[in-house]
């Protein structure tokens, strides 16, 4: 079976700890490992995916055991692990398992954060690299393309990527529900923690126009502000800044409240009641919880955001069930396409198509030819038959001719495209 030649070998965050995964890094980029894997005897096609959470080789091979072993040895060549040890960290999927695995990876179902979208970009990157130095043939080409469209289908038909599942992204999503468009909005970072930085980064990619940083040590504020092309201010200018900003992210190490309700209340009039979104990710808290009672002020502390994330995660898990169903559906579709990639069914389909055309045309003509003697009708039928058979003779011989596996698939692919032989929904 052609399907059984498709395999995925690799490690991910579930099977191997980071100490192992980092040994599998190829800092010179993917081209070199691609060429080396392709050179391993028995590898017909290959593609190489390497991200911080996974290293995978997607390949097609007829000669199996030795090839798998050699590829695994190559992957682990940077580590000092023995064959048995490396085998323990690896997974090997074959046939339908390999196909569903790839579909799941592409749509983020296998990711640490389920449904995250970056992996699809990384997979496309891997595809481009392999395509550039021609280590893939018809099979992997089709398989990877299919995995992109499966990911797209899952994204449109389920809400898998819909809800924010990280604190910083949840903050961005809330900001959007308050302000609509984040363009022309200003954000003030109070304190320069890592999470605040991350949230600010998200906000900037969403179009926030200005980042202002206030910090106890001005030096650190200036440094961070420069990263966002923003400006730095001193901590005691906070009230003044509150008149112009729309979003405030506070993460100071201060043991006391940095901002009280009484301080902000008079400011709202000066702000002409423009909404203010306050995000407090400091522990102990920086912002007076009572601030949330003021009109047009929305205060979220770290626990509130965590709560949002928890809800969203359980939403995502529900959506993941739908996504898994799509994966198995598409996997079956791909298997059907693979079946068609064998010689015999292709020839059968070709003959069936030709005969269907012949019969339809014969019928049309015969209806017009009234009063033709039976003998002549027979002759026309024989004529048509032999035209069809002679015309198909060479393509069939072409398909049946021996050659190496890769060659055969290219031929099949060409013939199927030329005669538009389709199988089910696989385009």
């Amino acid at each position, binding site marked *: 079976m052609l399907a059984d030649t498709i395999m995925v070998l690799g490690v991910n965050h579930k099977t191997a700890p980071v100490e192992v995964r980092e040994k599998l890094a190829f800092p010179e980029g993917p081209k070199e490992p691609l060429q080396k894997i392709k050179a391993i005897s028995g590898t017909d096609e290959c593609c190489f995916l390497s991200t911080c959470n996974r290293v995978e080789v997607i390949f097609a091979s007829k000669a199996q055991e030795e090839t798998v072993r050699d590829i695994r040895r190559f992957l682990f060549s940077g580590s000092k692990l023995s064959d048995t040890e490396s085998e323990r960290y690896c997974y090997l999927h074959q046939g339908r398992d390999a196909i569903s695995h790839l579909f799941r990876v592409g749509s983020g179902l296998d990711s640490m954060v389920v449904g995250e979208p970056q992996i699809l970009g990384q997979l496309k990157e891997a595809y481009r690299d392999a395509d550039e130095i021609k280590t893939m043939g018809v099979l992997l080409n089709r398989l990877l393309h299919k995995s992109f469209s499966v990911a797209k289908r899952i994204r449109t038909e389920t809400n898998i990527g*819909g809800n924010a599942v990280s604190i910083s992204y949840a903050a961005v999503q*809330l900001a*959007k*529900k*308050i*302000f*609509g*468009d984040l363009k022309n909005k200003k954000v003030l970072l109070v304190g320069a923690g890592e999470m605040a930085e991350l949230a600010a980064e998200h906000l900037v990619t969403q179009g926030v126009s200005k980042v202002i940083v206030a910090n106890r040590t001005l030096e650190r504020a200036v440094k961070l502000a420069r990263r966002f092309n923003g400006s730095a201010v001193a901590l005691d200018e906070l009230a003044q800044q509150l008149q112009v900003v729309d979003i405030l992210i506070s993460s100071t190490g201060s043991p006391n409240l940095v901002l009280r309700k009484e301080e902000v209340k008079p400011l709202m*009039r000066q*702000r*002409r*009641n*423009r*909404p203010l979104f306050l995000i407090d990710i400091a522990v102990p808290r920086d912002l007076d919880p009572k601030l*949330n009672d003021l*009109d*047009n002020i*929305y205060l*979220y502390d770290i626990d*509130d955001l965590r*709560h*949002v994330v928890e*809800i969203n995660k359980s939403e995502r898990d529900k959506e993941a069930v739908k996504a898994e169903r799509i994966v198995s559906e598409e996997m079956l579709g791909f298997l059907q396409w693979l079946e068609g990639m064998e010689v015999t069914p292709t020839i059968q389909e070709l003959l069936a198509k030709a005969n269907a055309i012949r019969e339809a045309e014969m019928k049309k003509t015969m209806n017009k030819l009234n009063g033709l003697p039976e003998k002549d009708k027979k002759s026309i039928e024989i004529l048509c038959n032999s035209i069809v058979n002679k015309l198909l003779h060479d393509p069939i011989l072409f398909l049946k001719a021996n050659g190496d596996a890769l060659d055969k698939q290219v031929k099949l692919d060409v013939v199927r495209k030329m005669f538009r032989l389709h199988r089910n929904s696989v385009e």
Partner: protein
Amino acid sequence: MTLLFTLTLVIYVLATAAYIAYFSSQKEKIRTVARSILFAGAASHTLCLVVRFILAGHTPLTNNHEAVSFFAWSITVGFLSFRWRYQVKNFGTFVTPLITALMFISFFSSQDIYELPPALKSGWLPVHASTAIMANGFLAMAFCGGIMYLLQEREIKKKRFGLFYSRLPSLDALDSLNHHCLSIGFPLMTLGIITGSVWAKQAWGSYWQWDPKETWSLITWLLYAALLHQRLTVGWRGRRTAIMAIVGFSAALFTLWGVTSLLGGVHSYVG
């Protein structure tokens, strides 16, 4: 005539059902269907008004059935034309039930055509009555927007995300909806009062005579004027303007129905 009106009502009921279905499923296809049904309803309703105009021989805005039907029509048309310019997600789910409710009220009011009382035989009738009711149409949309704002704001403030958080648009979008509706509705309302006043001078000899309906329109007008004034000067927005839009609309409804049934006055034949 009654048949056409009933048909319009049925189409509106269907549109409302479709919008509610869209609200719960959030499938774009259903929204397209709902919108097409509402378009059909608007067309049928327009035809209905034209037929009524021809049959009655005068502007069909002289009794409760006619006035409320026109009221519903102006919300539909206002909503459909608004749609092109401002994208407010799921607005239709809140507007169509109101339209349908008004149509039911109109349906159960007397649909007989009366001879026009002499005082109403004037070119001012269509001008005054239609601007006043059209104004109500836009105020009604601001009212729906206000309800949506309060629902959405509650979930964001209380940090409990239920039915509305993902379905309703951003607070900012709902607040500008309020602003847009009022900046059309309020001038129309002002115009309605001015034309009414001019007509009153012609018909009764004085611009203003503190008839209950006049008084209540003035109260309603003052409510909205205060709202707009606060919005423009101190930047009132959000929850307060949403609540004001709801209060203002209740006053407008009282002016339309409450005054006639409870307080009487020279406007009594209308409604």
